[in-house]
């Protein structure tokens, strides 16, 4: 007879969840966006992604061997960093660029702080911003979608920033990803499929993505045009790295606030900064800078949004 009266210490409810399981699920959920990127920009997108992932894994392994720490290559977090970094690059970059970016992401963005769980910034974004500051030439020339050769085109946001008249792209095309841009950010449909998996599994909560996107929408609606309350908010949501950032990078467990209240503040902050950079800043797109700046503010937010411990004042 099975003995149901086992005496044991807490916790009594176990789940199958673990860091590596969550991380690999996230990897799975961002793959659709990559496939869409390969369809839109050709096989170059695949090589860039593979280069970034392999470089990220090697850097993590070498750094952990060098510092004599436990090798955590198989927990999937380095794979995510590599993929997310590649998703933030144009598909026509020389292959050493994602490699340098991934090495920087893992070594400087993550391992020098002490590895997974210690980093204060999202490693993939650290890598992207480093590349952006170092080789802006490569980071801002994009391939024309579905052309499969070296025809370059600007992103709709960059065209808007230069004040030129936009050739009209329908919202449906923007939603499906028929525009110039980074590998993983263009196909909103594929990103939403991945986001739905994560939300369904409960691996991310709605607080950050919802408040982030909503704040950007409201702000660009109010201030996005010459006249107040005439901005094209849907255009701003469907363009740039907003959706990729909101669901996959602003929800990084390590570098974002712990409580729901804190996450809402974080999301609103990201949304405001993104909209401000897009409308009045020097760069056409500000999602990566917005998320990094809010990452820096996270310890501060956490301090002021502590949950009240039950039974105390």
């Amino acid at each position, binding site marked *: 007879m099975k003995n149901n009266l086992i005496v044991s210490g807490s916790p009594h409810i176990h789940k199958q969840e673990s860091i590596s399981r969550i991380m690999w699920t996230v990897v799975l959920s961002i793959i659709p966006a990559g496939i869409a990127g390969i369809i839109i920009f050709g096989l170059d997108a695949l090589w860039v992604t593979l280069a970034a992932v392999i470089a990220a894994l090697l850097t993590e392994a070498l750094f952990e061997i060098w510092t004599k720490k436990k090798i955590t290559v198989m927990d999937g977090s380095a794979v995510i960093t590599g993929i997310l970094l590649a998703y933030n690059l144009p598909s026509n970059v020389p292959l050493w660029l994602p490699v340098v970016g991934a090495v920087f992401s893992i070594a*400087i963005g993550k391992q020098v702080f002490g590895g997974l769980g210690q980093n204060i910034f999202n490693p993939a974004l650290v890598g992207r911003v480093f590349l952006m*500051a*170092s*080789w802006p030439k490569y980071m801002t020339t994009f391939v024309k979608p579905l052309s499969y050769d070296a025809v370059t085109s600007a992103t709709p946001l960059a065209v808007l920033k230069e004040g030129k008249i936009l050739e009209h792209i329908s919202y449906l095309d923007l939603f499906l990803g028929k525009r110039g841009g980074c590998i993983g950010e263009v196909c909103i449909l594929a990103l939403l499929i991945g986001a739905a998996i994560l939300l369904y599994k409960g691996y991310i909560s709605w607080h950050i993505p919802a408040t982030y996107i909503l704040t950007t929408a409201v702000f660009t609606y109010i201030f996005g045009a010459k006249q107040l309350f005439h901005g094209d908010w849907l255009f701003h949501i469907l363009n740039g790295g907003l959706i990729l950032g909101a669901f996959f990078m602003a929800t990084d467990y390590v570098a974002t606030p712990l409580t729901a209240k804190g996450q809402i503040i974080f999301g609103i902050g990201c949304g405001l900064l993104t909209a401000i950079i897009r409308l009045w800043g020097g760069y056409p797109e500000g999602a990566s800078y917005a998320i990094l700046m809010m990452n820096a503010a996270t310890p501060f937010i956490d301090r002021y949004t502590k949950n009240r411990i039950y039974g105390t004042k």
Partner: protein
Amino acid sequence: MKNLIKEFTKGIIRENPTFVLVLGLCPTLAVSVSVANGIGMGIAATFVLLGSSLIVSLVRDFIPDKIRIPCYIVIIATFVTITELCMKAYSPVLDRSLGIYVPLIVVNCIVLGRAEAFACKNNLASSFYDGLGMGVGFTLALILISAIREFLGSGQILGHTLFKGFEPVFVFGMPSGALLVIGLLLGFFNLLKNRKT
């Protein structure tokens, strides 16, 4: 004599003003864009350090304790003015590229720090060697940082291109690159120190 040599060498490695005492980071961050700037700044600061250490050590018994800091500042400012005017007269190019950071040596914490922590308590000879050692240490640190930054940021050392086909990493020519390089070097030297003990 052995003591004096020790006073000199401690500034170079054991108490290096940049990497161990972590003083004077503001000019270090700002001027370390190119090796030429680094050397110029290092020599200017060494001259001021030497002069102020000497004078402070000479007058240390006459300065009332309460107003010692203003007195040090006056002495330091004198030497900084000499440096600045000489630089303007004899190497205007360097003066233009260092800009405001030459007059700012007045408030460089290495100079004031040595006056306050060493020269006002020690005799002339030790103060001289202390100032010289600190100056040389500062100059070497500046050369190291600016060599890394100039090479990575523009692919050159002292204006000469080293490799063809190297794509410069612009970020190292910017202030964020200075913070990165100094942070990593600090970490590296701490690692070496910890390994030794």
